């Protein structure tokens, strides 16, 4: 009598090159999977994929839109990488983005009828502080009251959205706006300068790029970065090494919140130009996928934010030209994450199928 035995073993040596290569495998598998779905839906897969991944960026405007969408995703994901690297699961970037936009937008509304070079920097700083404060709530609750940061940060998303609802419907609503749930338009001095005439990509992209460089420096060249990485690998080791865990938790949440707040400010002072109820199409949640697809590496995140942005734009173009349902965009994002996690599993574990005689198992 023979039995099949499946045993899953941890691999001891995972090559770094392969580790950074698996996201590409995940993307290729997603494209193949997407092609199969398009085929099943009755579309020509090659044509559908062309409209999905090539048409959106086939002109300057499309390219600018790609950068516009990637900017907040990249910024938030950079912030999240600090949290995730140190084993802090901040799921509430969407809330921190919203609260940053509220605080920054509040400053913009203070100056709604004024112009001046100092206004935009004030708004940006206010937005970063807003996001930071909002991220400190789960961080403090975690460090001093042992709460679960996943739940707290996630639930705070709804809190911030309700605060925004209240403000745009009530005290901050445009007095000339017939009670519609939106604020006044911000003044020109409150708007991010555009990089090119007629294109929407704005100076916020420099904030994102600066965040990439600074985060690379902090993570790989400073003591703080070392602490973060060690805590991520093993909390016990970190404790043994005498790292101050609580301070570090507060710091990574503050960085993460500030980045999300900046992303929020970039949206309202960039393409939107006012506060209303829907300032973000869930950038804060999508950025979680971006962070992991980018392997929590600053430069990887740039690449990942562009890929994920393309799935958004592609979903729109595919719908305009082929009437493919827009929800395929979400399916694509889901597939990327799924294939990434699946290939990670195979990367870190090996599956051994053993064929044994019963008596060998000691029966």
């Amino acid at each position, binding site marked *: 009598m023979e039995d099949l035995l499946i045993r899953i073993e941890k691999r001891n040596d995972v090559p770094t090159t392969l580790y950074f290569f698996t996201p590409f495998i995940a993307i290729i598998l997603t494209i193949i999977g997407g092609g199969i779905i398009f085929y099943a839906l009755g579309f020509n897969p090659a044509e559908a994929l062309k409209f999905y991944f090539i048409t959106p960026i086939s002109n300057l*405007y499309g390219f600018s839109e790609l950068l516009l969408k990637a900017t907040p995703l990249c910024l938030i994901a950079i912030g999240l990488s600090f949290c995730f690297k140190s084993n802090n699961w901040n799921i509430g970037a969407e809330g921190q983005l919203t609260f940053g936009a509220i605080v920054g937008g509040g400053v913009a509304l203070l100056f709604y009828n004024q112009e001046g070079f100092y206004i935009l920097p004030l708004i940006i700083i206010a937005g970063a502080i807003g996001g930071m404060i909002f991220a400190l709530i789960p961080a403090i609750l975690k460090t001093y009251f042992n709460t679960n940061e996943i739940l707290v940060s996630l639930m705070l998303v709804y809190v911030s959205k309700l605060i925004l609802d209240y403000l745009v419907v*009530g*005290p901050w609503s445009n007095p000339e706006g017939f*009670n519609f749930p939106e604020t006044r338009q911000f003044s020109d001095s409150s708007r991010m300068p555009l990089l090119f005439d007629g294109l929407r990509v704005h100076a916020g992209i420099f904030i994102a790029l600066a965040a990439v460089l600074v985060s690379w420096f902090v993570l790989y060249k400073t003591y703080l970065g070392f602490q973060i990485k060690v805590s991520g690998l093993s909390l016990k080791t970190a404790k043994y090494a005498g790292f101050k865990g609580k301070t570090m938790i507060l710091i990574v949440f503050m960085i993460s919140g500030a980045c999300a707040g900046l992303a929020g400010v970039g949206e309202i002072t960039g393409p*939107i*130009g006012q506060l209303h109820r829907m*300032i973000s*199409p869930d950038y804060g949640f999508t950025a979680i996928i971006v962070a992991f697809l980018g392997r929590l590496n600053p430069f990887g995140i740039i690449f990942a934010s562009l890929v994920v942005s393309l799935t958004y734009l592609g979903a729109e173009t595919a719908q305009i030209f082929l009437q493919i349902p*827009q929800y395929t965009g979400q399916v694509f994002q889901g597939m990327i994450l799924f294939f990434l996690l699946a290939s990670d599993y195979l990367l870190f574990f090996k599956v051994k199928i053993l064929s044994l005689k019963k008596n060998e198992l000691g029966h």
Partner: protein
Amino acid sequence: MYKNFLRYLISAIFLITFSISAKADFKVGFVYIGPTGDHGWTYQHDEGRKAVEAAGIKTTYVESVKYGADAERVIRQLAQSGHDLIFTTSFGYMDATNKVAKDFPNVKFEHATGYKREHSNVSTYSARFYQGRTILGHIAGKLTKTNTIGYIASFPIPEVIRGINAMTLAAQKVNPNIKTKIVWVFSWYDPGKEAEAAQALIDQGADIIMQHTDSTAPVQTAEKAGIWSFGQASDMQRFAPKSILTSIIDDWAPYYVERAIAARDGTWSQQDTWHGLKEGMVAMSPYNKGMGADLVKEAKQLQKDLASGKIHSFTGPIYDQKGNILVAEGKVADDGMLLGMNVYVKGVEGDIPK
């Protein structure tokens, strides 16, 4: 000479084929706030799009387009990809529509329910839904036993306040003790929230539910609770066959077909349209016989009188919640007042969220 002739001939052929192909390529784009399967607001706009398609004009739609940064890109992409007329079917697209219209002077834009027409290629259109609300109010006032009408509202904008007031005024006419209870869900489409709101209103004693939101969740909740309800935007009868008394139907099809043909034939010009029962942009689905033959007859008569203008939904005297007069006896509210309506009439409970 011959050479020149050939050159003219070629350019003429080129021009003719180009203009013919341009005509044949006439395309209309639609931008929707919800999914086409919401069986409410977006569903009806898509029915209108299908009518345009049936009239032999190519159409494209993009559904579930969020307000904010995404809307402008989608509208611009439609304009860029050769659409000649673009309908943006939600209030939140107002600024984005006007912005794109500025950059595409040869493309025509039609924005639903907004008030900004900043460029000559932007028209606005909406329907006098409040006329339908008057009929609902009349029926509700006659049928309620608890004298409490539950109203699920989306956003405290004039259009929604107007509907609440029109319904309440009509209900008071037949039943002076009527009270309107409102739950604001701050969304156009959120089945979960809408169902909760319906249940909350039922728990507060409402025995008739109506909604100014787009999903079928409220009428389904009413059906389960065994009480009356009214459908919104499209005929929701099949989702709650026993409960639904009638639905206010938005019929965009004739307008869409008319405007698409006008744009194709070059007769399109900017306008601000506000049509109602008379023009058929607002219609009522068949009345539920459960309300009794007499009441069906009254409702039909009221529908006729509203359409002909014999009865106006806002005829004085109308008082606000504090008892101040809004419209004097014998007068009717003008369109300006209706468009900016910002206070509840007497008999509505609670305050407008501020």
